[in-house]
């Protein structure tokens, strides 16, 4: 009996440590605004990975067509009519500890390019999101800020 209980305890500890690690990574969840203020991105968790989709656009309509913006710069013709609102531009981020999420990609709808990307949380409400080509030196870091529903005054 003691052997079975010990096994159960080990299993509980294994799962709970995994859950706690995931909880630490879950601090990434929420709505964030890139530095240019042109969009808002909601970061969600799917499985064990983190994804971010556009939920708000400062300029939601294409000035040329007057219709909601679509991903017209995408190299894949099948995606060129996909609406930008709801588009997942952050993909596949994995929490590796020490306030850093790696192995992800970031998509820039303005030029249709996808970059390797890492996310570093510099404080609870600030992210350094780096997109790069090949090696991190060839890249650009953008600072995103956390958003919330306005407090009642």
């Amino acid at each position, binding site marked *: *009996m003691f052997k*079975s*209980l010990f*096994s*159960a305890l080990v*299993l509980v500890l294994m*799962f709970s440590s*995994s*859950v706690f690690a*995931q909880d630490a990574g879950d601090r990434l969840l929420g*709505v964030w*605004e890139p*530095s*240019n203020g*042109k969009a*808002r991105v*909601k970061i969600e*968790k*799917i*499985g064990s*990975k983190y*994804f971010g989709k556009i*939920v*708000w656009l400062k*300029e939601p309509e294409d*000035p*040329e067509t007057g219709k909601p913006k679509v991903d017209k*710069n995408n*190299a894949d013709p099948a*995606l060129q009519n*996909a*609406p930008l*609102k*709801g*588009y*997942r531009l952050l*993909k*596949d981020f994995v929490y590796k500890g020490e306030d850093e999420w790696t192995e992800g990609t970031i998509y*820039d709808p*303005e*030029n*249709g*390019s996808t970059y390797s990307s890492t996310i570093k949380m510099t404080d*609870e*409400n600030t992210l350094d999101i780096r997109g790069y*080509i090949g090696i991190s*030196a*060839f*890249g*650009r*870091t*953008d*600072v995103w*800020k*956390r*958003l*919330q*529903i*306005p*407090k009642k005054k």
Partner: protein
Amino acid sequence: MSKELRVLLGILILLVPFCVAQPQDSTIVEEEEDYSMYDNLDFVAEGTKRFCTSKVLGLSPQKLISLGYDFQGGADLSTDVNNSLFNNESARIEYSHGLRLQGNIPVLSRNSIIIQANINYAEQNYVALKNDENTVGTNLFERSFLNYGLRTAGIGTTIFKPLDEENYLLFQVSGDNNGDYGWNALPDLANTRLSAAAIWGKKVSDRKMWGWGLSRTYRAGDLNYIPVFLLNWTSANSKWGAEMLLPARAQLRRSFNSRNLLLIGYELEGQTYRIDSRNQGVSNLELRRSELRFRLAYERSISGFIWLSFQAGFRYNYSFNIDDLPNNRDFFRGFFGDQPYFMENTLSNTFYSMVSINLVSP
């Protein structure tokens, strides 16, 4: 089932929600969501400031690394000497050519500041007609650069400092060592020439930014201080645009798509070159070289961030004169100075072309 197993099963059932697979990824989010809930949100951190970026929609891509080859057609060179050391002479240059290497590496890239390190190397090798010795320059100056060519090597930095969502400052500083040097005759760092520019401007929208400023420049060959005007603009349909930093360059852009564009315009290229490093007994000579390049350029992405650029056009010689620097110190002549040149040279105009392969910026 034993009690222990029931306990274990209970624990596992409790953990199932943490462990089971959740919805699969897709680029397009299918589920309906009321996005209006994100319209009115505030920053969690008080005092958060937004800044404008240096990017304008649709602009030709910035080159992180560029390796190019420049070719100029034949031209006549004649010297008009204002001294007793040399004779007036002429030479026929069959063609000139050279490699060009540029690097623009981001050092610090933040919302509040972007700092970039710039390096550049360019060479221009002159090939004179070999079948007629009489046409090959014989004076020290011509012999020097016809034999050894001209080289430019420089480092610098570009700093973009947004002040708020609209206003920004742009600084550029570079130190260039130019001359007829090579591996056998390395340049003297004391001959490094400093260029700089400071611009204040406004990012009016995602499609337009402009700025005014002042520059210290050698683009006209001589040292000069001139005002500059920057404009980057893209039309609402993203098909047309303008990229200019007057008076250094201006070009109109026609974008076929985000990976394929055509540019037409001009660039003023120039530097001051120390040409006496191999001429014993003559020193402090600087070639004030400047040329206007009217060009048509086609740029396209060949694979992801690798772009090819082809350009061709007409090279108009603006200056190919030589100064003998008094006390080996550069001086300001400007547009209205009356200091005589040591040699006044004429280089006829010709066509040129350049091809480059580039790694472009995110």
